[in-house]
Each structure stands twice: as C-alpha cells, then as structure tokens.
C-alpha cells in the first residue's frame, strides 16, 4: 500500500480540511485575533490532522500488506482467511467477514461436489464389478458348450472387458485418493497375464509375441501395471501394418539406477507431428481416425497412472516402421522403502 495513492484517495477529506482551516483563519483574522494565536491554532489543527492521516494509513497498510503478501505466498489462495487477523477498521472488517462467508460457501459447494464425485466413483466401481459377473458367466458357458463356441465371441468379450477396465482405471486415475498398493512385482508375471488376455487375438492376427524379460522385479502396483501394459499391447495389436510379419517384442533393460521395460512393435507407427500429443486426453491423431474404435483415452489414462505410480513413460516411433513405448522404474525407490 502506497502513501501517495492513499492521500490521493482521501483527497476530498484533505481538501475540505484545508478549506475549513482557510475559513477559520479568515474568521480569526477578521476578529483581529493575535497573530501568534492564529499560528498556534493552525499548527495544532494541521498536526492533529496529519497525525490522524498517518495513523489511519498505518493500520490499513499493516493489514493490506500482510493480506497481499500472504495471498502471494499461498498456493491455495482460498486459505487466506486462515492467515489474516481481523482488522481494526471498519471496511477491513467488512472485507474480512465477506471473505470468510465466500470461502465458507465455496467450501460447502466443493464438499457437495466431492461427495457426489465419491458417490459416482463408488457406483461406477460397483457397476464394473457387477458387469464382470455376466462376462465371467458367458466365458464359462462358451467353454462348456463347445457347439456355441466361437473365437470371435471370445474376442468380443475381451473387448468388452478391456473397455470396462478402461473406465475403472479412468475413475481411479482421476481421483485424488490413493487406491493403489506398491509392492515388489515380477515383470514377467505381469507380462504373462497380459499375454494370456491377448492370446487369442494375437494368434488370430498371426502376431509373433516375443518376451525377453528375466527375473526383473520392480516396485509398482501389479494390477495397475497390468492395465498399463495391456493398454500398450492392445494398441500394438490395433495398429499392425500390412505386408510385414507382425511382431510385438517386450524387453527389459537394467542399469544400476533403473529398470526400463520396452514394448516394441513393427506396426504402422505414429506421425512425427502426432507423437508429442499421443498422451493427451481424447487425442486420436491420424491413426485414430483410421480406426473407428479409437477414443483417445487409453494412452491418456496410461500416462496418468504412470504419473501416480512414479514411473516415467516415453514413446518413440517412426511412421511405417515401428513404435516403442518405454516405462522407466526407478531403483532408488527400493532404497527409500527400505529406509
């Protein structure tokens, strides 16, 4: 808060005071008052007024400077009411009370939304578990009644299951709370589960599935990682390139700082202009437009999950040659947990 601005703001008060002093002086002169008495009256009145102005400026300055300073420092600006003290001047009190009211009402509204979000999330999770029951049932029926059995039905079932999982993990990735559990996980076990899920469609499309992963263990939530790897492998299957022998190759590299899981395919690849955007929400790019079922959510959710788990995910590709997705697991985590 600046003094000159404050003075300018109180211009009328100062102006009226000066006129009053002038009138009083005129009156005193016309009453032929003693000159020294006039000077005395003037000094008393003016210094009293200045004293008042300085005092008034000071208390405001103290409050507003702290207020603005705190506001700047705060990451969450709405917490400002927790930081400031109730001021000792009238407008300040009004501001303080109003801010308090506004914050309270906003907090209530947010709570309302957060409750409805939680309700929604719970409902979605419950619904997903419900919908898995008929899926499980159909899987068994097909297996038991070979005459009904058709690879195509199994494949479509797998598609439903994948889409349902995508919703589940979207809900989980968007939620602030932590519903994962990090523990030491065998990479080959995760890959084995993903392979099993995609076995039929891989064989049907004559895609060679090569895995060169030893006994590497990483710190992660195995279910989340399974979803992530499945998402990437599903993409590789979706974007195979005609005219070559299809290949998906999963390898793991290890150095003293990290373990990197690479998922490579010789599919249609990604255009250079698209590659920085593939992790964006609802981005489908040129490849997506070629394939109708692309929602552009898969890689976005994948990236969000990686972020939450603390894994770094990168993508490298050359159009009409290959796509390689790499997930980096930090080994430092082992130490941190051991501590």
């Amino acid at each position, binding site marked *: 808060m600046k003094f000159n601005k404050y003075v300018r703001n109180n211009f009328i008060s100062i102006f009226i005071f000066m006129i009053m002093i002038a009138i009083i002086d005129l009156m005193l002169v016309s009453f032929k008052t003693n000159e020294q008495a006039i000077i005395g009256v003037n000094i008393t009145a003016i210094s009293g007024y200045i004293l008042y102005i300085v005092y008034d400026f000071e208390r405001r300055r103290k409050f507003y400077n702290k207020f603005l300073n705190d506001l700047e420092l705060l990451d969450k600006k709405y917490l400002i009411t927790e930081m400031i003290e109730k001021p000792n001047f009238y407008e300040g009190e009004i501001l303080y009370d109003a801010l308090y009211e506004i914050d309270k009402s906003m907090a209530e509204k947010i709570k309302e939304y957060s409750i409805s979000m939680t309700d929604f999330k719970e409902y979605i999770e419950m619904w*997903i*578990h*419900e919908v*898995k*029951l*008929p*899926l*499980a*049932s*159909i*899987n*068994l*029926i097909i*297996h*038991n009644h070979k005459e009904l059995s058709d690879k195509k039905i199994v494949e479509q*079932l797998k598609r439903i*299951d994948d889409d349902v999982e995508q919703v589940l993990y979207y809900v989980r990735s968007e939620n602030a709370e932590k*519903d*994962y*559990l990090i*523990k030491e996980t065998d990479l*080959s076990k995760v890959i*084995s589960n993903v*392979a*099993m899920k995609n*076995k*039929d469609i*891989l*064989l049907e499309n*004559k895609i*060679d*599935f*090569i*895995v060169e992963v030893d006994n590497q263990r990483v710190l992660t*939530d*195995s*279910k*989340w990682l399974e979803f992530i790897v499945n998402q990437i492998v599903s993409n590789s299957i979706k974007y195979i390139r005609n005219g070559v022998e299809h290949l998906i190759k999963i390898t793991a590299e290890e150095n003293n700082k990290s373990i990197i899981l690479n998922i490579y395919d010789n599919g249609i690849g990604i255009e250079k202009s698209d590659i920085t955007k593939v992790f964006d929400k609802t981005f489908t790019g040129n490849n997506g437009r070629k394939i109708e079922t692309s929602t552009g959510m898969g890689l976005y959710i994948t990236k969000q999950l990686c972020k939450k788990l603390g894994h770094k995910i990168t993508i490298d590709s050359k159009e009409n040659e290959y796509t390689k997705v790499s997930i980096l697991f930090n080994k430092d985590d082992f130490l941190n947990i051991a501590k």
Partner: protein
Amino acid sequence: MKKILIVEDDISIRKELKNLLDNAGFNGMILEDFENAFEQIKKEHPDLILLDINIPKLNGEMLLQKIRKESNVPIIMVTSKNTEADEVLSMSYGADDYITKPYNPTILLLRINAIFKRMENKNDILIYHDLEVDPKKGIMKNSTEEVILTKNEMIIFTFLLANMGNIVTRDDLMTDLWNNNEYINDNALNVNISRLRAKLKDLGYEDAIETRKGQGYILK
C-alpha cells in the same frame, strides 16, 4: 474323485462352474446355505474350495480366516474386485491362489490342477504305457532307449498325458503353453507336435497322437 466346493452367489456362474469342474473330472459341489457356510464346509470336507470374496451375508475374507484356523484345505479366492490390496490380504490370510472374474476357464482348471499337484508332491515321474516321463529332467525313456524333450514338447506331452483318451483342443494346448510363458504361434505348435510324434515313434509308439480334424488331438 476330488470334491471341489463352489462358494458363489451368482446362480448362472455357479451352475456353469459346476459343469466345468464335472467335465474336467472333478466333483463340483455348490454351497447353498451361506448363513451357515462354515458348518457346511466342515460337514462336506471338500478337497478344494473356490471362494468368492463378496457374497451377501458372508465376508469371504473372514470365512477364509475362520477356515484356516481349523484346516489346510486349499482355497482359491475368486473375485471381480481386482485390486492389489485385496490380493495381498487374501494371500496373507492363507489363500492358495487368487483369480479374478472374468477368468479363462482353462486357466482356472490349470491352477486347480497345479494346487493338487503341489499338494500331492509325489515323485514327478509320469507313466505312458511302458514309457517313463520325467518332466523335470525333460526326458522320456523305456528300458533301453532315452530321448530328450524340449520344454515345449514336454508341456504338450504332459498335458496330453493328463487327458489321455480325451480330445485336447489346440486352444487348450496353447493356453497351457502360454501359461508357462512360452508364447509360441500356430506354426510352432505344429512343429512341436510333429517333433513329439517323431520322438514317440522312435520309442515305438507310432500314431500315438491322433489328429481329430477340427477338434484337436488325442493321446492313445
């Protein structure tokens, strides 16, 4: 015949599950009375329990703990709630395995068989007519000759042997191979089967593996 108790509230699933188990040579039994589940289980004395985690009026994890206090019967937890925390909890309460819905039925059977095999812990030598098969060493021999089987050939042969006299589909064989982290393709399966046939022929069993067109293979 091994008795497997199905604790599952979804009527369609448990009916098909019983079918699946019966067809696979087990005696599938359905638990109907969830309120007295524990007493029922004690009475039935199953060889293995397939236990759903979320059943109304029954907390699967509590039941698991209760059973474990009195018995070592193998238990596979079945759930549609696929979270790490649930799995860790179930395993720490003493479940033998954990499988999520929807599951591949062949995998479920493989897991059940794996548990029984682990429990019996018998010496791993398998017998086919006058041949001895040792999966661990990867050899198959009669009194005079010995041939070496590759890992894939051994997986295929042990699967056929376990289902001797019955048709085994290519898909079942593939599932077992992939389940053992051998991600081979159709051509490789053909190659492995012809090599296995040749090796059986060397030991005097020509045409031991018969092809049933459109259905699969049968070991005679």
